[in-house]
């Protein structure tokens, strides 16, 4: 048992904290609005190997575990970098898993995205990264496919300035898997996406807390820093709890995902609070951190007072991404319903 990071992971954390801290400043984030994509930053991140680091080594990637990717994701979230890194990493891993690893994707030269919802009427709705990706991985009926096609010119204007787009299933189409295997692969990839998104949201929440602490210690009202008032303190004291709890949960999901990939099946006994099931932990991590990041950014913005609402302050950038980067998948309440199906069994008494 070791709940913290390994030495390798600590090194990864340091590298990416440095990279994103330097390359994805709030000015960079702001400049990339509303489209939500900075091609130069993408090129720079490709130099770090991050886009393909989760691809197996024998497929030409970095061989990083999901746990390692979660460490990167938190730093990515902390800087709300305007690149669809998580989506690309998940897509690249799916490709490699089905023998379709492509150097251009592993290198990040071709940007890939992962459709979070099965296609309806030949279209994947609001694919994150979809406005910039040349390759879309998604479920189309009973097939898991990779479709190569030119991305649209622009993303619809959206809350978090994400590079979203609806993408067609038409194009140069490769079938990666069919039938049950396709559905299983889609589920696996979606669980990876939820896990890494959860870690990203931990980073957003942690950074929002950091910004709040800076502000409340320097803003003086009534002759004191506002952070000296219990009204502020009691509310901020909840944030590190949710952040730490959310990080542990995201890490446990990643650990369970790595175990599952290694053929070690998880265990699920909710009655005994004993749970190492990847799908359940990924869903839990998504729900808990979607709420946690929304709350942390809400409180941080609030304690910035009027300035928190001003466009020129940075906290509003985080506030919007805490919401957008989670809800692009779904309502956490509906995810709870799906978790209940796994944890408590299907609704047998209802037709």
């Amino acid at each position, binding site marked *: 048992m070791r709940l913290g990071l390994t030495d390798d992971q600590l090194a990864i954390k340091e590298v990416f904290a440095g990279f994103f801290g330097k390359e994805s400043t709030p000015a960079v984030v702001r400049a990339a609005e509303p489209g939500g994509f900075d091609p130069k930053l993408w090129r720079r991140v490709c130099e770090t190997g991050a886009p393909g680091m989760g691809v197996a080594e024998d497929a030409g990637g970095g061989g990083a575990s999901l746990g390692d990717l979660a460490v990167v994701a938190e730093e990515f979230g902390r800087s709300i970098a305007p690149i669809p890194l998580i989506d690309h990493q998940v897509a690249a891993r799916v490709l490699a898993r089905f023998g379709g690893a492509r150097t251009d994707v592993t290198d990040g030269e071709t940007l890939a995205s992962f459709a979070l919802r099965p296609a309806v009427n030949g279209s994947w709705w*609001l694919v994150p990264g979809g406005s910039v990706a040349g390759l879309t991985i998604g479920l189309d009926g009973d097939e898991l496919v990779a479709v190569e096609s030119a991305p649209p010119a622009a993303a619809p204007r959206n*809350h978090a300035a994400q590079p979203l787009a609806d993408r067609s299933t038409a194009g140069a189409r490769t079938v990666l898997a069919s039938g049950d295997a396709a559905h299983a692969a889609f589920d696996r990839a979606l669980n990876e996406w939820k896990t890494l998104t959860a870690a990203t949201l931990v980073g957003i929440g942690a950074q929002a807390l950091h910004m709040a602490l800076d502000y409340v210690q320097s803003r003086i*009202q009534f002759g004191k820093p506002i952070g000296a008032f219990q009204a502020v303190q009691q509310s901020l004291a909840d944030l590190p709890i949710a952040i730490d709890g959310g990080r542990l949960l995201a890490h446990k999901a990643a650990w369970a995902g790595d175990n599952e990939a290694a053929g070690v099946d998880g265990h699920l006994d909710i009655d005994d609070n004993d749970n190492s099931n990847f799908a359940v932990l990924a869903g839990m991590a998504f729900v808990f951190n979607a709420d946690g990041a929304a709350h942390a950014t*809400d409180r941080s913005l609030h304690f910035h*007072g009027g300035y*928190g609402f001003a466009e020129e302050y940075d906290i509003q950038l985080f506030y919007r991404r805490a*919401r*957008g980067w989670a809800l692009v998948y*779904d309502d956490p309440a509906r995810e709870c319903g799906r978790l209940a199906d796994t944890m408590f069994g299907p609704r047998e008494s209802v037709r």
Partner: protein
Amino acid sequence: MDFELPPHVIEFRNTVKRIIRDVVTPEMIDEMHTSGTFTNHTLNRALAKEGLLERAVPGMGMGDPLELWVLFNELEKAGAPYDGISTSIMVAGVVQQVGTDEQKQAMIPTVVSGEALVCMGYSEPDYGSDVASIVTRAVRDGDEFVINGAKMWTTMAHEAKWLILLTRTDTEVPKHKGLTMFLLSMDTPGITVEPVHTMGTERTNATFYDNVRVPVSAVLGEINGGWRTMAVALAFERGVMGGTNVAVPMLRHFRKWAAKHIGDDGVALIDDTLVRERLARIAIDNEVAKLLTQRSAWIAASGGLPGLEGSMTKVFASEAYQKAVRWCQQMAGPAGLLQFHEPNAAADGWIEYDSRHSPVTTIYGGTSEINRNNIAERHLGLPKAR
């Protein structure tokens, strides 16, 4: 226990509703969101033309005191651009109460005709919640005062004809006692307006005062009585001039959209059990927010000063609105992220807009923490804790 409006107020309300129906178009609302300036000259003039603004000004004695609440409640529920006239009418009430005849004659007709707007300079970059500590100076120079300083959140300054400005005129006395309020024209030389854009699209301003000279007759109320003049303004506002029922249009927008938004399983979103529970809770909170506001209006109309009741309403309504917005955006899922004019946007983009607008509502006009302090100290009688 009689919750029904008197017949003449119902008639007033029907007139407001009719004007809204006739004048407030989707294009007008759209323009307000595009420009970030939440006022509209056509609407203001239409309301003025039928005498509604005049009737709403507190203390003018032209209409039932309940009409102030009814006017802004209807405008708010309609999502109409009313920020400009709400401030203007409130200040007109202050001028009516504490202004000189000269000030009344100069200012009130321009407001009730729907032609002129007023902006307020209270907060400063370093003083928000602690507004009594502001440092913008007004120094007496013969028959004039010379004003220097800077104000923050001077919303409508770029549209307004009038400004009320809180200044420090005496630094030797306790901070509340050295403040003076001025009423001046925005044309006065030395005033600069710089836009401040917000995440909620709404534009506000920073304003700067560089040797602004005004005659002594520009003092509104007493010299060094600025805190009292501000209290009069607050007493008029008392939470009945909009801002406490903003979740009503949001629920309406969401409901209409959810009724026609059919999921992949063929079930309309409005028929989802988890959605229905949350919408019902929003409707309950909307009713309570309305009742709390109605209570303030009733107390004011009965000659009382519903100051703490206004604080209570504001805390409740703003926090209920934020909870409702979070729920609606979550229930909408990805569609709740799409902005105005994007295809498939939840409620034509309103949900996304509300999510950007709602954070400010627990900040401006007194943060929830300041309001709770006031409630704890002055309503519950607990010891001062700051």
